[in-house]
């Protein structure tokens, strides 16, 4: 039988046809060994090989060009990482690899987008860059009271989200930290007042994600906060070194999540357990959208070291976790970003989740979840990241959709890189050695070999993926002017100079805040909407906009934070391509009010107030 030596294959006695077949088999075998090389060659066809194009050439070829203008815009910010308990010193670069964040707002209601940027070293300062309307920004964080927020006793910043929690017309600031979360009331754009205690927020959360959304649609925005490390850990004063995840794919020893219901009187009530948000995974990102089209916002939570979670909102009373049945939580990965966008112009939410892709070591691949059908409940999703060419980015963190060339299709900016060490020697061997072991070994930081300045997926390039409208994205990163190798964390898109284009801001860990000014080919039109709620929350967070033009439809929403440690501008921005008119915009406000505006003017920012 099978274990018998198959001598008939060997030897000179084999008949001539069989010898020919043997030779043919060997030839095919060699061809198969060459298959990976061929696959690599042909799969790289979607990557532009025209690095370093001039702006006119990039405009001609791709319709847009990005130029890093931080210095010229007066933004000189370098993120400083946290330094935690010395017990973690051997692997400090990896455990303290978070904290660079950026969120966009118009805090002073002057019609120009401002930026809030976090820092993470004890004693370092956050920055609030006020847009001076002349192409430059000035840091007003210190005089306005939101700069000196990184202290040994109260923790350091991990990110921030803006939302008008008291409906006074001014965006307030929620700062989440590895430490005490802080809520700052915006005093009509002239300063901020700390209201943490009166808002009834907890003493300590080691948080890496937060999202404003009005889950119960009562007209007051509520707040989701995602925990990373457990809340009972003071990372500057550890009693032992058992602080690591118990598994790199199934960990459930992270921080708990929180849902703060806004009572409307300035006080928040914590209702996570009462509403079913009881996970203790290692949350790194979250985003809200009405994925089941029932009028209330649902919540997607991206978790590192495990499966993600999709919570369907049951009329503001409870959340039902449906990740597995919706097919977005079958395979554990390293979820680090959550962004909703309509990349196919179908009026449907697709969801982009970033993960780790390190060749030969760990290839999770990013996910682009596309709903395949809507059966009245939660949609079922299919991952089309590979088919659409946005799967392999690197050790990916923040990502944002935005129509960067105003051609009518949402493009994608992804930032990458975990730890760029003093050397380019890799720590991946040690990492994979320990990560494959039992939880008693993994969970104890003292078992992890020292990094000694080595890199862990460092010096990686960002990705700018251009949506060609046929279901494929093309990597145009260096061609359009993005050439840095910093460790990327947060990405935000905003029209910083009110020109009808989306600029890009990227916060890099231990690196600069880069502002990419976008130049777009003039013949592409655009339209934008700034919404203000009346019956709904005043920020209009959760409002859905359906734009109909040129026989197509694209859905966008006013969001209260998405991506990784980031928040885009409050406005909705649409590129229109060559279209000279729009059929209509249909707005579904969070209150349920549906407003239709026929033929709104293009190349215009429309300020809309919710009908009473």
């Amino acid at each position: 039988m099978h274990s018998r030596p198959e001598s008939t294959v060997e030897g000179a006695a084999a008949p001539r046809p069989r010898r020919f077949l043997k030779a043919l088999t060997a030839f095919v075998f060699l061809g198969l060994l060459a298959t990976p090389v061929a696959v690599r060659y042909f799969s790289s066809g979607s990557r532009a090989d025209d690095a370093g194009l001039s702006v006119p050439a990039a405009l001609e070829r791709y319709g847009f060009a990005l130029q890093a203008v931080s210095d010229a815009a007066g933004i000189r910010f370098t993120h400083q990482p946290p330094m935690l308990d010395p017990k973690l010193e051997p692997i400090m670069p990896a455990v303290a690899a978070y904290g660079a964040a950026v969120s966009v707002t118009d805090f002073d209601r002057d019609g120009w987008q401002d930026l809030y940027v976090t820092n993470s070293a004890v004693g370092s300062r956050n920055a609030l860059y006020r847009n001076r309307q002349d192409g430059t920004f000035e840091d007003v964080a210190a005089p306005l009271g939101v700069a000196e927020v990184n202290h040994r006793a109260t923790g350091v910043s991990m990110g921030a989200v803006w939302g008008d929690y008291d409906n006074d017309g001014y965006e307030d600031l929620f700062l989440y930290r590895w430490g005490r979360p802080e809520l700052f009331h915006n005093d009509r754009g002239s300063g901020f007042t700390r209201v943490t205690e009166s808002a009834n927020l907890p003493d300590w959360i080691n948080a890496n994600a937060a999202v404003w959304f009005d889950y119960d649609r009562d007209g007051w925005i509520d707040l989701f906060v995602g925990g990373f490390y457990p809340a009972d850990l003071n990372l500057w004063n550890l009693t032992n070194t058992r602080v690591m995840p118990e598994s790199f794919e199934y960990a459930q020893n992270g921080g708990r999540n929180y849902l703060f219901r806004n009572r409307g009187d300035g006080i928040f009530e914590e209702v996570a357990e009462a509403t079913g948000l009881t996970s203790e995974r290692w949350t790194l990102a979250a985003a809200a959208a009405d994925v089941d089209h029932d009028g209330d916002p649902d919540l997607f939570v991206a978790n590192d070291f495990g499966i993600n979670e999709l919570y369907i909102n049951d009329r503001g009373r409870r959340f039902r976790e449906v990740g597995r049945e919706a097919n977005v939580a079958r395979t554990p990965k390293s979820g680090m970003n959550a962004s909703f966008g309509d990349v196919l112009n179908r009026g449907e939410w697709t969801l982009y989740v970033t993960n780790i892709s390190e060749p030969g070591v760990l290839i999770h691949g990013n996910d682009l979840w596309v709903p395949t059908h809507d059966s009245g409940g939660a949609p079922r999703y299919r991952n089309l990241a590979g088919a659409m060419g946005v799967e392999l980015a690197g050790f990916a963190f923040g990502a944002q959709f935005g129509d960067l060339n105003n051609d009518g299709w949402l493009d994608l900016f992804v930032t990458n890189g975990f730890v760029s060490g003093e050397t380019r020697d890799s720590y991946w061997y040690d990492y994979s050695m320990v990560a494959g072991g039992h939880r008693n070994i993994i969970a104890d930081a003292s078992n992890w070999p020292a990094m000694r300045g080595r890199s862990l997926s460092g010096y990686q390039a960002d990705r700018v993926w251009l949506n060609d409208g046929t279901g494929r994205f093309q990597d145009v990163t260096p061609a359009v002017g993005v050439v840095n190798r910093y460790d990327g964390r947060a990405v935000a898109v905003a029209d910083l100079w009110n020109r009808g284009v989306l600029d890009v801001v990227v916060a890099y860990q231990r690196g600069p805040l880069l502002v990419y000014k976008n130049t777009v080919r003039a013949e592409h039109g655009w339209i934008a909407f700034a919404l203000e709620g009346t019956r709904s929350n005043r920020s209009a967070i959760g409002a859905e906009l359906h734009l109909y033009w040129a026989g197509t439809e694209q859905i966008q929403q006013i969001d209260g934070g998405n991506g990784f440690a980031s928040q885009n501008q409050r406005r909705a921005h649409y590129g229109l391509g060559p279209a000279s008119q729009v059929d209509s915009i249909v707005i579904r406000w969070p209150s349920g009010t549906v407003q239709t505006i026929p033929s709104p003017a293009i190349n215009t920012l429309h300020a809309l107030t919710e009908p009473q």
Partner: protein
Amino acid sequence: MKYDRRLTAPLLITLILIGAHWSYGVLRGYEAIALAIFSAMATEFALRRLLTGRPQQLVSAYISGISIAILVRSPVLWPYAVGGVLSIMSKYVLRMKGRHLWNPSNFGICALLFLAPFAVAPLSVQWGNDLWPMLVIWTVGLNAIWLAKRAHITLAYVASFFVFAYVRTVFTDSSFAAEIAPITGPMYQLFALFMITDPKTTVSSKRGAIVVVFLVAFVEMLLRLAEVIYAPFYALFIVGPAALLVEMWWKSRAEAAQPDAQAAPSAHRGLRWPLR
């Protein structure tokens, strides 16, 4: 109907796979495993018919396919097909004196890891963070190889691994706990229980098999000191065929000295091995 003992191994590994995927979603997806198994079995069917003309026996190809599906991780599908086909083809192309030299799964996995690192990674994480999957695999696996009289190979490898793990701590600043971490994960358990014990690609004597796995562990140590992530697979890839060639040379010398002597039949004829 009488139970066919040859089905024990494929049933065993199928049950492990189903349990692992049901509990922890370890597979890329059902299409990946279907593709790997189909590719391996179709290749076996075609090559066996074309090159040997002997009756079809697809069990070992099924096992190779399922092994590729478990041990290879890729976000795309083509590596599962290529891995399955390469594994089986290696049996028919890379031969010496009527024997194939590489464990088919080991060859397929090494080929993918070496040639397609941009699309492939090995199974390098644990199945869950509980103790019971580890206990299940060790209990079921040890029982199976004990019945097959191959337990000495696994035990010798495990002992060697621990010794060399300690040796590595002398040369690196890693703790002993870090160095032994891999063997507490499922990839090593499958490797130690089922791959290195494959009767077709190990030497026939008991003492020889122990020496060979000791050498596998030694080469693995060298590769680990060079920070090669796929050290166990590559070590078996290097040592396994070399050991077989030495055995063939040794036997042919003995046969030349005693031309009337009949080669002793393999003690393990008829076994179907889980990681082929």
